[in-house]
């Protein structure tokens, strides 16, 4: 492995850039939701409170780590160390800066698989404790994963079929031209985009799908017994998940328009991707702010009765549109 690749993995667009992005997105979320609720949000640390998430992270690192004896602490530590790295790893395949560090045909499936594993790890976090709240939260989380994951995978295949590739980099390159060349594709594309956003909302556990850590019912769900450093890493995990969700959605459904051929163009395309990610997050947070929490049964109903059939419907619609010209000619 040459030195250039190493710098890419560790600094830009790899580890450090992603963590900075995670912290920035956390601030973006707090500030945006605060403004939606006509509050101020963070104001004191740094310019308009931009360093507040970092300050919170550091504060949690220095706090006493209260180890609950009824929990399996070793497993918890392992989970919380592995989980954030999974997202960083899967983000190597996503064109965060317009190009990807690693790429091969079929990496879309790998990324989807890794993100599912990461969600399952959160379930282990709750299940390691013997508290009613963490256990109920973990059980709800598992049900939730069962709900949204299939829909998410089916919907991620829609842009893959449009671009006729299973490589995220290729999809993001070809998706805009593929959709423009056949405007009929816009119907399943837009349809899939909306449904995919809902599935990602459930993945992020934001309202209306914040069921696993519903405060008024389960205190903090599966997070209840975690404190100190572990909580810091769990927060980082959630923030990285936000980065992953936004960039993954943006690159699948919006694509990269500016080709990152030279150094200046890399910056231009990374700004482009960044803005698209912000747009995706804006939509997600609007849904979050505007809705109440639903019950777990409602979630399963919504996903199994409507969203999963609809996602397969959009997939088959795509087949028809794709195949129709060939049949007619």
């Amino acid at each position, binding site marked *: 492995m040459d030195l250039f690749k190493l710098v890419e993995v560790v600094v830009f667009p790899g580890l450090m850039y992603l963590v900075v992005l995670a912290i920035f997105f956390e601030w973006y979320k707090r500030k945006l*939701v605060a403004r*939606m*609720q*006509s*509050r101020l949000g963070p104001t004191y640390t740094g310019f308009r409170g931009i360093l507040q998430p970092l300050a919170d992270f550091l504060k949690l690192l220095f706090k006493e780590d209260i180890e609950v004896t*009824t929990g399996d602490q070793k497993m918890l530590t392992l989970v919380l160390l592995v989980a954030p790295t999974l997202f960083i790893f899967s983000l190597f395949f996503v064109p965060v800066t317009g190009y990807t560090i690693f790429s091969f045909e079929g990496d879309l499936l790998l990324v989807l698989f890794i993100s599912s594993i990461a969600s399952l790890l959160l379930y282990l976090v709750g299940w390691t404790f*013997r*508290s*009613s709240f963490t256990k*109920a939260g973990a059980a709800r989380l598992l049900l939730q994963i069962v709900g949204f994951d299939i829909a998410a995978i089916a919907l991620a295949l829609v842009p893959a079929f449009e671009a006729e590739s299973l490589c995220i980099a290729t999809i993001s390159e070809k998706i805009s031209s593929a959709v423009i060349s056949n405007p009929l594709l816009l119907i399943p594309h837009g349809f899939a985009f909306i449904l995919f956003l809902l599935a990602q909302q459930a993945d992020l556990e934001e*309202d*209306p799908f*914040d*069921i696993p850590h*519903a*405060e*008024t*019912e*389960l*205190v903090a769900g599966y997070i209840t017994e975690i404190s100190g450093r572990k909580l810091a890493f769990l927060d980082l995990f959630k923030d990285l998940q936000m980065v992953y969700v936004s960039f993954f959605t943006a690159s699948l459904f919006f694509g990269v328009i500016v080709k990152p051929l030279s150094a200046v163009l890399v910056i231009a395309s990374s700004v482009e991707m960044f803005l698209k990610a912000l747009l995706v997050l804006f939509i997600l947070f609007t849904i979050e*702010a*505007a*809705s*109440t*929490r*639903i*019950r*777990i*049964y*409602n979630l399963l109903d919504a996903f199994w009765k409507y969203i999963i059939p609809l996602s397969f419907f959009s997939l088959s619609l795509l087949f028809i549109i794709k195949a129709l010209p060939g049949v007619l000619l």
Partner: protein
Amino acid sequence: MSYAVDLLFGPQHPALHEPERFRFKVDGEIIVDVDVKIGFIHRGIEKLAESKNFIQNIYLTERICGICNVAHTLCYVQAVEDMAGIEVPERAKYLRVIVHELNRIHSHLLILGVAAELLGWETEFMYLWRDREAIMDIIEDVTGNRVTSAFNTIGGVRRDINNTQKERMLKVLDKVEKDTRFHKKVLEEDPLYRERMVNMGVLKTRDAIERCAVGPTARGSNVDYDVRAHDPYAAYDEIPFNVIRYKECDSWARMMVRVDETLESINIIRYALKHLPGGEIRVKVPPRLPAGEGLSRVEAPRGELIHHVFCKGDVKPYRLKVRTPTFANILAIAPTFIGHTIADVPAILVSIDPCFSCTDRLTFVDVSSGKVMKLSLGEIKRMYWSR
């Protein structure tokens, strides 16, 4: 093999006057039994009132509940006036109505916000409390404090309203009415809010009457009982208003009663300000009152409130009995939990405007034998898989 988890909701909440503990027996997510324990902040106010004089007791009763403090002082001073046969000036009666209704608006908007927050709807909570702030400002302007108003006194009220205040109040009321109409539309039509609230905790009309529910809880169950209309006090016999009732009998209906009552209260205040009579605002009252008994009931924001005063011709009451509305409503609402899920507990509990916090650990109770077991993680897992 059926196991129920004991899930404890409550008991402590330092901010409110009547915290209660709900001990739910939960089978999976379904509630199969409920047990209520109240009195966690029994402060002995009834006993304490016997050792304070009548004036001091105004401020004591005010502190029974911070949210509906005007209702408490109003009820207390009316009971004392009833006992001593004191006739209150007309203007004071109207001023009492105005502040009482302002208090009602503030309380209703507060609980609507809390309900939204309990359902994870922080935005609506922030909006409702933002709009409530305008009412708090008028209360501060009229009475001198945002919350504990200290407005009513035996023989009248302590402060008058001048014209600038009146104009300011009317302007704010217009704004609050606009905001409340917006919130009414949102709460009426929002699909997710309806999904959480409709058909939750159904309290049938017959049950509501038999279990003596009061206030919005009763009126949400279509019971025609509003003290303001049926046993008018202060100036309510001269002010026209509607008794809000809903036929749905569920949590949603109880919350909508509050929204509509807010709008009704705004109209009452407007009418009272328009027809405010002139004259004195209070009469002088001697410190030593004649022996007798006085009873007053008031429609507090949460429901019917009663103060019953006994005196033996002293500067102090011989006995003061207070019955707060939540006391009546807990009994009415408790059986309606059965059959719902844990996720619905906040939605039902908040609809009677109570106070609770939820923290505790679990014990396992076998439903059939009621035996409490302490189990290890492995055993629980084994039990879980064997189901």
